Every structure is written in C-alpha cells, then in structure tokens.
C-alpha cells in the first residue's frame, strides 16, 4: 500500500505531468468559462494532444481540464446568466440573481470552494468504492456485463430531460453507428457500403468532436452573440466561504453524496447531478421561498454535487469500461490508447497508476482554488473575446485534431458528418449524449449480447439466472419502464384529485 503510494508519487512528480496538468487546468478554465463551449468539448478537443504524452500525463490533462471546466462554467452563469457548461445551467439563474444583488463575489466564491470540496469528496468515494467493487466485478460474466451496459444506456436516456422515446431513439442511432465496420462477431464488413474507410468503423473521438464542437459552431452561426460582460472590480472572493461551509454543512454533504451516486450510475453525469441537487436543496430547505431570488443555499448544494460526480464518474469507467458520463467516455478512449484497459484487474496489476489518478484528482481540486480565483478576476477580459475569434480557432482544432487521431483525412469527414447529425438531432429534441454513449458502448454491448446468446444457445432464460445478473436486469428493465409509470401516474393523478374534490 505505502509502496504503491510512493510509486504513484514518483509517477506524477515528473516535469511532463506537472506542466501538462497546469496547462490543461488553464485550458479547461478558459474553455469552460466561454458560453457554449462545454466541458465535454474541452476534453474532446484535448484528446489529439494526449496521443503525444505519456499515459499518466495524458490522464492528468483529462482530469485537470474536466474538473476545471465544470467549475468555470459557473462564471458566465453568475455574471451573464448564460451557463458556460450544461452542468452549471441548473443554478445559473440563482447565481445571476445574487450578482444583481451585489453578491457576485459570494456566488463565485461558493462556486470555487464547494466545487473543490465536492471534487475531493468524489475522489474519496472513488478510492473507497473502486477496490471492493473490483472484487465483485471479477466474478462478472458476459450476462452481467450486458445488463450493466444496458443499464448505463438506459440511465443516459432517463436523465436526458427530453422525451424518453427520443432519447432511446438517439441511443439506438448510436448503437447503429457502432455496427459499422468489420469488428463484429462474424468479422464481415457490415454497413460499409463498399467504402474502405468505413471498414475500421467510426472512431468515437471524431464523432464526439463533431457532435459537441462542430455542432456548436453551427449553432453559433444562427444565434445572436451573447452580450459582453460588464467590467467590474471584485472584492475578496473567499471571504465568507468558511461561514457558509459551517452554516450549510449538511446541504454540502448531501450535495456531495447525491453527486457521487449520480456519478457512479453509468450514463448519468454532472449536469444531472446539479439539477437533482438543486431541486433537492429547494425541497428540503427551511426557507424555500428564498430560492430564485439570489439565495446561496442551492448553489452550495449543486456546486458540491456536480464536481463530486466528475471523480465518481470514473468508477464505472475504470471498472467496467462503461462511461459514467460523456467526459468519462472520452477518458475511456484515452485509457485504452495508453494501455490501461479498463477492467477490475486494473486495480491489482496497475495499482500505482490508479493511485496516481487519485492523487491527480486531489491535486487538480486543490489547484482549482487559486487558479479559479485568478480566473474569476480575469474573467471580464476572457469573456470579452468575441465569438468571431474563438469559433474559427475551434474549427481549426477540429480539423487538425480529427486528422491527428488517425493521420487520415477520413477523420475530418467523420467530424463534419457528425457535426450535421448532432446539430439536426439537438434542434429536434433528440439528446445527443444518449447517441454518444451508444457509439462508445456499442461494440461492448454487442459483444456481451452475442457471446451471452451463444453461451445460452439462443435462450433468454440464462440472462436472468445468475443473482447479480437478475438484479441488474431488474434495474435496467425498471429504467426502461420508468417513463411509462410516470406517464400513467400523471394521467391518473388529475383524475384522483378531481374525484376527491367532488367527494368533498
């Protein structure tokens, strides 16, 4: 244990890792704070760079950039009422109301402080949960993996805040995309239409870049430019945070726990954690009437929650290769590329690398406090960068980055195609995150499904026979039926209230 810890420290105390982490932190802060550029996009555009780094440095950049971007999305949320990342959308109104009341420092300070606390709570959960879960995961067969992957996909559709039917359709589209190529049980070219470029299948990373970056540039073409941020002087940012921590320590803990749970659930990520926690905070608050008028309580809980989900989202990624959210989906791609194939054995064979990941998460969250304060102070200047200078650079990064992934122009075509697909889907209310998870997990789902079918000789029964498989199956089917139950409940309830009204 101590030996591995020392090895892990040696792994991360190289110049490459330190520089990579600092650079990625600044990059994540800037991208996250620009409205419309999400944390997922920041991470996706980083992938081509990670090719040229050592494994630990590559993961360091992902860890640092994603944690920072989730926090810095709060900055334009508080100052402009435009969330920088979807994860900040839940409480952007509240934070903006605080700014209007002249409490911008308190709102942003709470963002930094409780993000950092939440992030560290997430790491602690990752350290505590991963090893025992790895023990259990060792006994998993393809049946369990199939249900687990399905559960992840179903969660992704549940949390989509859109029509569940459309979300499931999005997931199917993603799975269909993953069918392309010769990497299937028969090794035959499938849906390649005779094109050599399609034989290798669609790489998830260019698809992600297309869906999250190119589609965003396309949307920018049609939407008006956000207003420039008013220049202002900030007072002390950390003042009063300790009092808040003492006053709202229960809310903070609850936010952390909710964030950890939602992060661990495959498929659900930071934005969902923030929405749930904000709603929960309002529901259980002693003064719910203050919510929406610039009350810090919801900010504390949701801020603590969304950053906690970032680290705990790595639990299913590292153990099963099933992403906790879209950022973890990218991280999985990087892990595979760097020879750290996700799986339960990772914790025994590459224990020092795992400890290095934990340590990097902790360092990133501590770094967040000074860097975050600096970012808030210069935010007025960064946010002044007009869209017409940022978007062209994003375009270049998309083109060069997608080329760099395979040194192949077909990657650029993929990015363009998925830009259009993502744009059309989003415009019509089909959640793209569900499709992305479908693409990332498709091969795994198919492999688990077909292998299980071969083992069971075409029968469905063995899918439910093993105890863990049965539990996972019940959860996955429950997730599938949940929207139906909500729908019935909504239909029945008005009738009930009407009947009680007449009875009186």
């Amino acid at each position, binding site marked *: 244990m101590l030996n591995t810890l020392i090895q892990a420290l040696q792994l991360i105390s190289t110049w490459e890792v330190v520089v990579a982490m600092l650079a990625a932190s600044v990059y994540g802060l800037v991208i996250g704070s620009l409205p419309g550029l999400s944390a997922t996009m920041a991470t996706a555009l980083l992938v*081509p760079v990670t090719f*040229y780094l050592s494994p630990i440095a590559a993961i360091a950049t992902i860890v640092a950039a994603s944690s920072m971007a989730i926090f810095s999305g709060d900055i334009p949320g508080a100052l402009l*009422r435009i969330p920088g990342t979807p994860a900040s*959308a839940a409480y952007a109104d509240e934070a903006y109301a605080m700014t209007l009341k002249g409490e911008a420092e308190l709102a942003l300070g709470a963002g930094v402080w409780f993000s950092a606390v939440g992030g560290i709570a997430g790491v602690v959960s990752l350290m505590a949960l991963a090893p025992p879960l790895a023990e259990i995961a060792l006994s998993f067969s393809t049946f369990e993996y199939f249900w687990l992957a399905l559960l992840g996909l179903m969660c992704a559709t549940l949390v989509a805040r*859109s*029509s*569940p039917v*459309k979300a*499931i*359709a999005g997931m*199917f*589209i993603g*799975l*269909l995309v993953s*069918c392309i190529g010769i990497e299937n*049980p*028969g*090794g*035959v070219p*499938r*849906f390649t239409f005779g094109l050599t470029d399609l034989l290798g299948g669609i790489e998830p990373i260019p698809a992600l870049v297309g869906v999250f970056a*190119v589609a965003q540039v*396309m949307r920018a*073409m*049609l939407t*008006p430019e956000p207003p420039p941020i008013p220049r202002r002087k900030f007072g002390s940012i950390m003042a009063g945070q300790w009092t808040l921590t003492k006053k709202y320590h229960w809310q903070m803990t609850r936010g952390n726990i909710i964030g950890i749970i939602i992060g661990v659930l495959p498929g659900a990520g930071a934005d969902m954690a923030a929405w749930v926690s904000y709603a929960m905070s309002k529901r259980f608050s002693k003064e719910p009437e203050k919510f929406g008028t610039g009350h810090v309580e919801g900010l504390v809980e949701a801020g603590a929650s969304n950053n906690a989900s970032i680290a705990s989202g790595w639990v299913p990624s590292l153990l099963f290769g099933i992403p906790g959210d879209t950022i973890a989906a990218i991280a999985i791609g990087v892990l595979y590329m760097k020879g750290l194939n996700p799986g339960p054995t990772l914790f025994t064979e590459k224990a020092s690398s795992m400890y290095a990941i934990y340590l990097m998460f902790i360092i990133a969250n501590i770094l967040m406090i000074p860097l975050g304060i600096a970012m808030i102070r210069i935010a007025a200047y960064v946010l002044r960068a*007009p869209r*017409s*200078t940022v*978007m*062209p*650079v994003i*375009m*270049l*990064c998309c*083109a*060069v980055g997608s*080329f*760099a992934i395979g*040194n192949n*122009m077909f990657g*650029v*075509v993929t*990015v*363009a*195609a998925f*830009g259009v697909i993502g*744009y*059309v889907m989003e415009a*019509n209310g*089909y959640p793209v995150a569900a499709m992305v998870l479908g693409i990332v997990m498709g091969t795994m789902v*198919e492999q688990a*499904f*077909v292998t299980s*079918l*071969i083992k069971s*000789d075409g029968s469905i029964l063995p899918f439910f026979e093993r105890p863990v498989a049965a539990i996972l199956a019940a959860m996955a089917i429950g997730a599938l039926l949940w*929207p139906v139950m909500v*729908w019935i409940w*909504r239909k029945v309830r008005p009738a009930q209230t009407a009947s009680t009204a007449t009875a009186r």
Partner: protein
Amino acid sequence: MRLPDSVTGSFLVVLGAAAAYGGWRLPPVPGQPVGPNVFPLVIGTGLALCGLAIVFGIGHSFEEEEELIPVEEGQARAEPPGRFYGLRALLPPALLLFYVIAADRLGFIITAALMVLATSTALGAKWKLALPLAALAPIGIHLIFAKLLRVPLPVGLLPMPW
C-alpha cells in the same frame, strides 16, 4: 431547423427498417446460431418502433420547452432572417469538407487561413479583426500540432520555415 416530429419519426422508421433488413441479409457464422446479423436486427427493430412512437406523439409530454434566454423584442426584430439564413449553419461542415479536398494541394496554412477568414466573417467580424486572425491562427495551430506534437500536416504551397 426544427422539423415536425412526424418527419423525424418517419425517417427513423425507414432507417431502422433498412438497418434491420441490411443486418438480416448478412451471412451468418457457419455452425453458430447467432452471428453479426442479430445485433443490427435488434437495433433496427427498436429504432423503427421508436420512430413509430414518435410519429404518434408518444412521450411528447415529457419534452421541456427550450430554456433559451429570452431576447428582447427589439433585438429579435432587428435582423429579419433572409430566406437562406438557415443555410449559414452548414458553413462549418462545408469548410471541413473543403479542408479535406484542398489541404493536400494548397497546404495547411493557406487552407486554414481561408477557413478562419470564412468562419469569422460569417460570425460578423470586421476585416480589421478577421484578416490578422486568418494570418496568425493557422501559424499558431501549426506550431502546436506540427512542431510540438509532430502531426504530419500537409505542406502544400507555403511551407513553414521550421
């Protein structure tokens, strides 16, 4: 580009049916009950069913209204969108395809400069901003990717001195 649900749903029905049919026609693995054909069959059927449900408006009640920041009336009216205004959204993918076609011949720097110029002008940048950006951004990206990360970017007509 908001299409009616009936259109997108019907498209999904067709796509799903095509995928199921295409999957069904794939050759099975000899001696095995399941092969590469099963998964597309399942996915395609599921997609077609979802498409049908969308056509009939099932699940529509779950959709939340777009949470856009309301633009003031005066701002929204200021720019009457022309007939082809919506097509501007296609500029980014078109530029990426242009990159695929032109980069090998023109080289990275020139192609990238044209892309930057087009994107920033389309987003409303003045010449004073767009021209220097088009000159500097490709060089910066070239420095990072070609020099630092050693990505073989096409040289073309304008090789960089490093």
